[in-house]
């Protein structure tokens, strides 16, 4: 901690990586700053060095290939919502980015990379990306490494820190026949969710061929529910199946969070409700009174 911190703005990834490796501790990486500035303003974080990665071009840009969409971590939420390649290939991600709290001001400056590396349980990007089975690419002094976002989440307890830099988010494009839904249960427009559920479904005719649910804001880490839902495969969706999915997803919540967004018992219950409503949204069955727009 320092009252007189230093500042560095590396020009490229190599320089940033070398710099971070040379700093023993007390450094933070900053780009949009929307995650860490509140902590700095209130003295919760007092870094010795700010490493500003905002000038590194390699961390910008989106490219959509047939088999993979690559998203630069400096892409701001507003662009995730609007860039044509993302809206067309990853509509679930574009929709989830719209649900991020803080208003347009935060959407204009906050980056997808910052949202991911913060590993904050209430954030909206991770459930969408985990439902889409996204990968991430990281750069550390050991070199570049690709892993699934699920694996990164398992490895990290309180964010990514400065041991490595997130360099790419890699997602398989959604097929046009993939159905998707995202439901954020929240108290007011700009608020954090009490339960955030992302759902990806494939149908075979009327029958459910596959379903994958990722639930955020209910536990310390986003919970992915997939294998537990196998018993609903092969049959059509009905309100009974919806309630059963709700129960299965609620049961998957081990130790629920208990904070300003609601107490644990309620959060566990709402995790299931959000999952059911996201499923109904995917299937076009969510009525308007319970829609969160």
């Amino acid at each position: 901690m320092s009252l007189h911190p230093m500042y560095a703005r590396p020009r490229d990834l190599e320089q940033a990586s070398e710099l971070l490796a040379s700093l023993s501790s007390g450094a933070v990486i900053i780009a949009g700053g929307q995650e860490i500035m509140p902590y700095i303003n209130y003295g919760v974080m007092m870094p010795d060095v700010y490493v500003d990665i905002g000038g590194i071009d390699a961390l910008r840009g989106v490219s959509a290939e047939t088999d993979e969409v690559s998203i630069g971590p400096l892409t701001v939420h507003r662009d995730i919502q609007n860039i044509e390649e993302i809206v067309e290939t990853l509509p679930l991600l574009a929709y989830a980015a719209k649900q991020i709290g803080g208003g347009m001001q935060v959407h204009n400056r906050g980056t997808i990379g910052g949202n991911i590396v913060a590993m904050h349980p209430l954030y909206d990007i991770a459930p969408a990306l985990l439902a889409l089975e996204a990968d991430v690419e990281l750069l550390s002094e050991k070199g570049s490494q690709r892993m699934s976002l699920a694996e990164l989440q398992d490895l990290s307890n309180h964010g990514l820190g400065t041991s490595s830099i997130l360099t790419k988010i890699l997602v398989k494009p959604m097929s046009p026949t993939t159905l998707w839904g995202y439901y954020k249960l929240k108290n007011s427009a700009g608020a954090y969710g009490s339960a955030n559920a992302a759902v990806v479904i494939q149908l075979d005719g009327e029958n459910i061929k596959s379903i994958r649910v990722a639930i955020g804001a209910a536990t310390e880490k986003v919970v992915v529910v997939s294998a537990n839902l196998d018993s609903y495969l092969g049959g059509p969706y009905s309100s009974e199946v919806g309630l059963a999915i709700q129960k299965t997803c609620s049961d998957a919540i081990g130790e629920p969070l208990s904070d300003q967004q609601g107490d644990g018992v309620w959060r566990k219950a709402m995790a299931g409700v959000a999952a059911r409503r996201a499923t109904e949204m995917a299937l076009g069955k969510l009525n308007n009174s319970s829609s969160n727009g």
Partner: protein
Amino acid sequence: MEDLLDISALIQLRVDGQFHELDVLPSRTLLDVLRDDLGKKGTHLGCKTGHCGACTVMIDGKVAKSCITMAATLSRAEITTIEGLADDDGSMHPIQQAFWDEAGLQCGYCAPGIVLSSLELIQNNHNPSTKDMEVALAGNLCRCTGYQSIKRSVTEACVRMYPEEK
């Protein structure tokens, strides 16, 4: 690598049309620089957590919360504050006049942020729906005026800014 580290950062800002070259300490916010260094007191400090939106300004034409924007990260930027909207002769911008005429502000503390968020909305969408306004203003809290007169002011501002489209 040591030579990359500095105790401050040199930034170039064009604020409300005026160019400034500033040497800023890291961890100072854009809000600090605007209010304390440049005297732009129209940009208000509310929460310092990014929740209330009273500190909203435009960075390169897009709204941002200046209290959670680190000034050092803006190596070159164009900033518009509420003080940059009026004409040189002091006459108000049509959106300011619409807020005045439609009672879109009471105590006025949130007003600079609300006006700038509304301005970005109107510039991108000349005929916003109520839902569009709610989305655009989700990052601005008002505790006394009430959002009904704010929405009325936004609608009136659209008429005044783009009369040919009405």
